């Protein structure tokens, strides 16, 4: 069976428990090791790993990255996960499970800079990189064997090592023959893992998985399927395409195909990001316009920071509010020219907010941009003399923050909201 050492990349002979060359136990073997070429790479507890990298004192301690008391967990390190904490979990629950966890406020700019570095390393091995989010992507390494002087598996192992050495975070790799199974595989051996699902084992691997295992099958669809007698993917497979399509239409057919591990979606690097947004949940519900505005401004800065790192600008600004009863309200406005400036985002966001801050209590506010394009300079406004001056000021403040650190220049508004209880 083909195999190699993930530490020194030497061949691993059958049966050996450790690498004969370097003694590492991190060996990988698979009969299809050198023929598979679709991969999914997922950073392990990305935000938390970056925080741990930057502060060695956090080593071995449970670290949660996320918002305040009422926010949710953005990332939990593997120590914190042993307490049952997972991302998207409400913060108060997480702190109940692990009261001594160290909570760190997310610093989006830092993560997106590091995420971008990792993405560039991925792009060094193949142009076919399809980012799924800031910390995960699909890669198609088909036909790169000669270029890199080794199989895709070997190239991926080298990439994994390079990311670890240069960025200081670990990633988990799933390698298979399509995107669905590659993504499934990357979850099998976390953290710092390398898992493979070959063609030969696909059917056996999927057989006993519950229907909800397939992405896109949510709790209600899964319930419906179970009611109709389909509990596992083997049940789906037995029913066949026709039956599934007749019962559930398009999504039934899709499920039937995925139950056999068939996924024809290509890794598509062109897939555009539709929008970028930033939101926050308050400790206490807010209804006052001024208080909401104070919360909106830092979000605009955060969003603008991300847009600036990626050199993108958005033509449509969307304000999101969540009422105390969890009803979500969104208001959008198309701009006359795309922007990536916090000032411009805030001005539009504030206009939209004025229409909604008329009494109801809100628990969350968010702002986003969509219809993205490359940023091409800050457009002036014939009716707003100050727009170009404010743009110049914001660019100057960005330069100062880059040089002297994140808090070098802040608006008075930020200090005011920080001083509030």
């Amino acid at each position: 069976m083909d195999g190699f050492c993930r530490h020194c990349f030497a061949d691993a002979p059958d049966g050996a428990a450790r690498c004969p060359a370097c003694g590492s136990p991190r060996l990988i073997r698979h009969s299809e090791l050198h023929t598979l070429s679709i991969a999914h790479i997922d950073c392990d507890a990305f935000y938390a790993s970056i925080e741990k990298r930057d502060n060695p004192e956090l080593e071995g301690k449970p670290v949660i990255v996320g918002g305040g008391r009422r926010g949710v967990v953005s990332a939990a390190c593997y120590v914190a996960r042993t307490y049952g904490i997972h991302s998207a979990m409400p913060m108060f629950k997480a702190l109940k499970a692990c009261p001594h966890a160290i909570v760190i406020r997310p610093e989006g700019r830092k993560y997106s800079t590091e995420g971008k570095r990792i993405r560039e390393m991925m792009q060094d091995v193949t142009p076919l990189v399809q980012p799924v989010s800031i910390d995960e992507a699909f890669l198609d390494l088909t036909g790169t064997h000669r270029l890199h002087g080794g199989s895709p598996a070997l190239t991926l192992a080298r990439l994994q090592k390079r990311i670890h050495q240069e960025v200081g975070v670990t990633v988990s790799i799933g390698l298979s023959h399509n995107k669905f199974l590659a993504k499934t595989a990357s979850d099998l051996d976390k953290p710092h893992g390398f898992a493979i699902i070959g063609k030969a084992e696909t059917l056996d691997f999927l057989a006993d998985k519950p229907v909800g295992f397939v992405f896109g099958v949510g709790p209600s669809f899964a319930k419906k399927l179970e009611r109709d007698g389909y509990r596992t993917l083997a049940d789906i497979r037995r029913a066949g395409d026709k039956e599934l399509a007749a019962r559930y239409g398009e999504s039934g057919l899709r499920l039937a195909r995925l139950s056999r591990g068939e996924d024809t979606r290509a890794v598509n690097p062109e897939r555009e990001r539709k929008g970028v947004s930033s939101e926050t949940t308050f400790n206490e519900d807010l209804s006052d316009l001024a208080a909401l505005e104070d919360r909106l401004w830092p979000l605009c800065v955060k969003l603008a920071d991300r847009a600036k790192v990626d050199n993108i600008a958005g033509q449509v600004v969307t304000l999101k509010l969540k009422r105390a009863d969890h009803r979500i309200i969104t208001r959008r406005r198309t701009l006359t020219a795309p922007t990536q400036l916090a000032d411009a985002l805030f001005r539009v966001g504030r206009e939209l907010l004025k229409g909604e801050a008329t009494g109801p209590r809100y628990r969350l506010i968010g702002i986003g941009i969509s219809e993205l394009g490359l940023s091409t300079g800050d457009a002036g406004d014939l009716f707003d003399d100050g727009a170009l001056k404010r743009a110049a000021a914001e660019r100057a403040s960005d330069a100062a923050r880059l040089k002297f650190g994140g808090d070098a220049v802040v608006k008075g508004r930020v200090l005011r909201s920080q001083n509030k209880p």
Partner: protein
Amino acid sequence: MKITIERDALLAAMNHVATAVQKRTTIPMLENVLLKAETNDCVELSGTDLDMEASALAQAAVEQSGQATVSADRLRNIARSLPPGANVQIELADNGNAVHIKSGRSRFQSPSLDPRDWPLLKGPEEAEPLRIDAKALAAALEGVRFTAMPHGKGSDNLAVVYFDFEKTGLLRLVATNRHILGHVALTIEGAPPASFSLHTNHAAALSGFLKSAEGEVTLASDGRVMRATRKGATLTTKLYDGPYVDWERIVPRETQETTAFDREGLRIAVQRAAIMVDEQSNLTKLDVGKDSVTIIGQGEFGASGHDEIAVESTGEMSVGYNGRYLSEILSALSGARTDLKWSSPTSGSLLCCPDAPDHFYLLMPVRI
């Protein structure tokens, strides 16, 4: 209703009516054309989308007067498919439920909706119409239309062309999208109506209407609707009902510097430099010197295009503009020479031909 109409007259009328008819709508009547045969030698055809109505009069032999409605798209396609010079008979049949159309050996039947349900768009009340040369108005409208916000993209108050009658003896057409402002003035005679804002989609329809008009047209408005009339046809549209922006405030009274250049030369140079610029990005940089301007188009990954033309300039600056706006302005202006009048690279620059100062554009720079 039963009429006989010549195919060419029917097609010409239907082509005009179609400007107001939408193909997909939730109100079935709006897909129809209203045929009104009330005298014995002509028929009136109308289409509407509730905000705009296009009507045309066509000569016809009326055997039986009355009204009918029928799918506008189908009637137009039938007229198109028939040979020139053919006679077309249109008859309301089946107790008013169907329209029968006959020509030569061709027969068509189409369902008809009750004409009493036709949504009438009332024309301007007691408005004195203004007479104006159709070709001149069409050219003026084309000169400013591209500077307005497009229809349906938000900022409704800017998705209009403003017909400004504030100055005696002048019709000033103005449009702006906050980054560019276009201005053209026409002399008029007679009492003007109150100024009004025409939605950009209606301005496009009016432009088409004017292009197929001969001689003079009349414009009438009561502040609620506007009606343009040419021989045998009218176009009625609702108007934007809010006030227009205070556009005169942003037009600089005086500028400090003037850069004079050959219009066609700069237009070609801007287009050439833009070859290296990606479609999304429209940034064009001008390095203005006393006797030459360097035009730089900047693309992604360090791509760039440079060109240079001779100018006469009183001042020097380095400025960025939206290249698409700049080339549209240079195409829209006439005359050999164009003056760029400016004060700084962060305030609006004026572009006009010195022989026609009333046709000008105000262009806001982009920060590079």
